[in-house]
């Protein structure tokens, strides 16, 4: 059977080719950055200034606009990372392997932000920075998973073998994701239940919800920007002996 390249398969082949990915990334980044800054600006203005004060929590609730989107990102990035890991393991696509390891520090950062802003919200509302309840503990385990992936990758010299190892670790760690999500329903926790993702009707005022969703979308764009930036470095490291890096070096420097 002969392989006839269709426009779609040609598109994917070009996308997965490192030099094309590199130049496309350079063209995309200014646009992504512009969208991110606009969304972030509106999200912060809406959340910190326009949104009404909460009748129970006063203005302390405004931490929600960084806490909840960061916590969502900590889960979202983990799932993307594990999926990229699976793609890398099955099809041996170099770019997928690069996405796994480039995602890990960003995911760890969002998990850290979720935990720290949660503590800063918990202190005035619950009277304590930290409790060992299901939601907080499972989120802390997520941080350790990210850190474990980063250090395992650093410990293995051969980067293709390192990628396979961290992809397997990332896939095993996926069990933690539903545990984090449903922890507030399965166990009695101090952490409040879901307010936005309830199927029937979110129990949050629309003026509070819009900036929250704006921040969530802004963080998605941030992830894309940070991911592409980190992927460029990783790609250069791995492809340093290839022709396209050499010719780029001659034109850029």
């Amino acid at each position, binding site marked *: 059977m002969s392989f006839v390249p269709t426009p779609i398969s040609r598109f994917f082949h070009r996308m997965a080719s490192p030099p094309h990915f590199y130049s496309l990334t350079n063209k995309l980044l200014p646009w992504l950055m512009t969208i991110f800054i606009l969304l972030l600006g509106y999200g912060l203005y809406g959340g*910190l200034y*326009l949104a009404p004060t909460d009748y129970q929590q006063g203005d302390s609730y405004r931490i929600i606009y960084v806490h909840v989107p960061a916590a969502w990102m900590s889960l979202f990035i983990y799932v993307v990372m594990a999926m990229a890991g699976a793609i890398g393991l099955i099809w041996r696509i170099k770019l997928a392997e690069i996405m796994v390891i480039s995602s890990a520090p960003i995911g760890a950062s969002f998990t850290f932000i979720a935990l720290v802003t949660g503590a800063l919200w918990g202190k*005035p509302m619950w009277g304590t920075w930290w409790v060992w309840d299901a939601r907080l503990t499972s989120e802390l385990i997520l941080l350790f998973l990210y850190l474990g992936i980063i250090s395992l990758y650093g410990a293995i010299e051969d980067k293709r073998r390192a990628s396979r190892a961290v992809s397997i670790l990332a896939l095993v760690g996926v069990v933690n994701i539903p545990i984090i999500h449903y922890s507030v329903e399965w166990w009695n926790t101090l952490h409040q239940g879901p307010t936005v993702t309830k199927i029937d009707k979110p129990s949050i005022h629309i003026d509070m919800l819009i900036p929250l969703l704006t921040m969530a979308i802004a963080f998605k764009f941030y992830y894309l920007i940070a991911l592409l930036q980190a992927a460029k470095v990783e790609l250069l490291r791995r492809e340093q002996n290839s022709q396209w890096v050499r010719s780029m070096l001659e034109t850029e420097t």
Partner: protein
Amino acid sequence: MNSFAEFILMGGYAFYVWTAYGIAFIVLLVNLIMPVVQRKQFLRELALKQKRIRQ
């Protein structure tokens, strides 16, 4: 929020709110700057290495 002062004071929760946003801002900024610094440094080293090989 009716005034700028109210915005800064955050109904008495200024410390918690602004610390949360400050830490998040720093962590996210570092994540954007680090790869740019690393890439420039790597390209510089690589250019030096190639120059040495050619000589």
